[in-house]
């Protein structure tokens, strides 16, 4: 403790710490859901994560090395014969360099960010026949309606692979956020508004989904599984739900709206116009807002 450990040493300790921390966790790389995309949206976002990560890592590494060098060389100690220029405080050329480099980085990153932001509002693949899933966040459950298939599910999603899906989101409770990390980033569910989010699964599998915006005591339990299956299996599942599951009645919907937890359920049908009624009800009966164009 007597003398300062040089930042270089500190850095070495940190690297060691980070590496051993990751080893100790014993968690498989698959558990890094954001880094394991299963569809084009998540892949596209991961590209930007990696690009921005690499760009900033270069700067951070440079700053830490420079700090270590300067502190090592210019410490006040006897017989330090490094140059000492107490009045030197201006250098046009140096300052131009460190104004210019971050500007270049920001411009590069900004261009990619802009392109990606616009592309993510469109379906990930050209499709003549997009599938729609209407999502409602409730206290504290997720209700999914499939208007094309006329079925509904609770706390569970089944989707076909290779099919762009447009999720239309609203909330009949405090605002939440709909997030399936392996398929792509999140979008908020807002009462009185319809938000849109394109996602697509390319690989079959079961992916974790969750609510990402705090909504009260049951919030931590608002998780759901997303099962991605080939189109044939999906069609089979739909007809099985249509033929063998109960309908979602208005009465049952009203119980779902009440705060509480619930398990997984499948419904062969749901009350007509349920989704739009929810959007309109919470909007004072006015025209719904937020059709993907802001307020």
């Amino acid at each position, binding site marked *: *403790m007597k003398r300062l450990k040089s930042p270089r040493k500190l850095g070495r300790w940190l690297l060691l710490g980070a590496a051993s921390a990751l080893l100790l966790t014993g968690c498989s790389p698959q558990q890094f859901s954001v880094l394991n995309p299963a569809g084009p949206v998540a892949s596209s976002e991961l590209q930007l994560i990696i690009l921005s990560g690499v760009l900033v890592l270069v700067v951070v590494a440079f700053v830490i090395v420079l700090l270590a060098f300067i502190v090592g060389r210019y410490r006040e100690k006897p017989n330090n014969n490094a140059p000492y220029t107490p009045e030197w405080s201006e250098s046009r050329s140096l300052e131009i360099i460190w104004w210019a480099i971050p500007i270049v980085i920001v411009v590069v990153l900004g261009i990619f960010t802009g392109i990606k932001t616009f592309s993510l509002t469109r379906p990930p693949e050209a499709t003549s026949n997009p599938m729609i899933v209407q999502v409602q966040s409730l206290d504290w459950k997720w209700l999914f309606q499939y208007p094309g298939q006329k079925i509904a599910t609770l706390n569970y999603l089944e989707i076909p692979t290779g099919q762009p899906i447009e999720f239309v989101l609203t909330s009949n409770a405090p605002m939440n956020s709909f997030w399936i990390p392996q398929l792509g980033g999140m979008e908020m569910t807002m009462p009185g508004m319809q938000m849109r989010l394109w996602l697509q699964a390319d690989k079959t599998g079961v992916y*974790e989904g969750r609510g990402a915006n705090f909504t009260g005591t049951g919030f*931590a339990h608002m998780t759901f599984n997303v099962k991605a299956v080939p189109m044939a299996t999906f069609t089979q599942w739909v007809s099985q739900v249509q033929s063998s599951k109960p309908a979602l009645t208005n009465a049952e919907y009203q119980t779902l709206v009440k705060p509480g937890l619930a398990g997984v359920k499948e419904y062969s049908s749901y009350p007509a116009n349920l989704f739009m009624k929810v959007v309109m009800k919470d909007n004072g009966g006015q025209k719904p807002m937020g059709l993907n164009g802001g307020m």
Partner: protein
Amino acid sequence: MSGVQQFLSHFFITGPFEIGGDVSIGLVSIAILFILTRYKLWGWLWREWLTSVDHKKIGIMYLLAALLMLFRGGVDALMIRTQLAIPGNSFLQAEHYDQIFTTHGTIMILFMAMPFIFAMMNIVVPLQIGARDVAFPYLNAISFWLFFFGAMLLNISFVIGGSPDAGWVNYPPLAELRFSPGPGDNFYLLSIMISGIGSVATGINFLVTILKMRAPGMTLMRMPMFSWAILATCIDIIFAFPALTIALGLEFMDRMFGAHFFTVSGGGNPMMYVNLFWMWGHPEVYIVILPAFGIFSEIVPTFARKKLFGYTAMVTSLLLIAIISYFVWLHHFFTMGAGADVNTFFAIASMFVAIPTGVKVFNWLFTMYRGRIRTTIPMLWFLAFVPNFAIGGATGVMLAAAPADYQYHNSYFLVAHFHQVLIGGVVYGMLAGMYYWWPKMFGILLEEKWAKWGYWFFNIGFYVCFMPQYPLGLMGMTRRMYTYPAGMGWTTLNQISTVGAFIMGLGFIFIVWGIVTSILHPVKDTTGDPWDARTLEWSLPSPAPHYNFARIPQIEGRDAWWAMKQKGLTKLDDSTPIVPIHMPKSSGKPFIMGVLFFVAGFGFVFNWFILAALGMVGVVILLFSRSFEYDTDYYVPVDEVKHTEALYGRS
């Protein structure tokens, strides 16, 4: 009878933690009352502190409050981390956990970071620009007492009525009556509105002080960098805080009087709240970080024994950050469905903040380059700040890339990022400032042994605590979850993080212990300039006399005190005659006004409108009585000034 019982059981919260809180509050209060009475300190407390309008004393009170709140917020943090150490933990229930992370965030931002920066600006700015006090000393005292009683109002919710639990951002509809009945959320609204009045007043006060009260010859471009940083901060405070006041005021009307500004079912729109909140919320981030930048800009030249590199660029970058900060608020909700055009604008604007910030880092580094670096405690905190803030800033740029943010938003990646910039930036900066100016505040030096232990524990603890949270975010863990199941791969990283939090807690204890031992075994700062520093405050004895400067110095360049020392002076020029010094009188009214606001706030919290009205009427009466008070200032006679100066060995 049962009605009374029911009322009492809602009024006084009874759980194991709350009863613990009751007991400790009771014991501490009794101890304070005992000491004050036993040593006959009541008069001293009232005359010297509670009624003081001296910026130095107000600054010290802010500092004390900030450290206390750092403790309270830190205990909250440790409870959060304890709960998350084990999957499916039952240490805290959801209701409790929600309250604790809400008060943790609210306290750390509004009742720890804010008073800490106010402490630094109060203690330093007038001394640094050659002024005898701030422009409006009485208003300054009001600011402090409104902050103090606002903070007390929030803290009392822990044992009376129940803490707020809708998150520190308090978004409707969750924070509206339908989803958050009970007084908890009212505590949040009232406490922040009350202390917010004080914050705006402080912003105005210091803006005027800096613009109008600089010593002759100190042009803006000769002003020390900390004062520049406070000028930029004040601009942000004045234009940002009204947005918060409006947002909270409207939410208050929704909850209190059934208005529908943000309740969707009544045609209101919660997006309005979110926008207003972050129009304040993002500048607020710079309100707390710019003073830290200012502090580092004083510490680095002093301990590198070298002129600050690129003064003009430092000023430019400060002002650029202050201005850009108004054009980035939407990045707090990229995922709320604004169009791609809007998101792109705010993404790129947010990245732009990195440019002036990066410039500042390089200028600090090149201030040390070809200097002679002394690794004192304040300098150590700076050296720890650089890598920490570089990483935090870098992840900030990553978050600013809107499409990538869709994957980070509300995850532990975000939690790690903002703790890294707020702790690594603001807390490190304020601690550095506290160590740096401590001799000036109290006239004693701080010891170094425990300070170093605290430094290393806090620093290492920081990385152990927060580095695991980045990967946790990439594994899909979201913030504000009171529990998580096993088998997600989150357990070990959470456990490491918890260990780190407790290491930081130990670091805090060492820091406080260092302060306590320094006070118990004081080493006097006899020179007034223990660091061989550069700016005007170090020309004064420590602690500075209540009128600061016996004679207002004439300033001829930057680093005014350093320039005088280069000319061979060891104290300020004392060849001119001393004239009587015009000073403000102490007043008990600011304190009483704080009490009245507290009473009114407490009344509003419980919808006891008669009590609220009584408090507000009291406030109005005080305002009137002050308006007709003419005996508010006095002159310190020349003899008294000479006598005081002689005590410091000066003439």
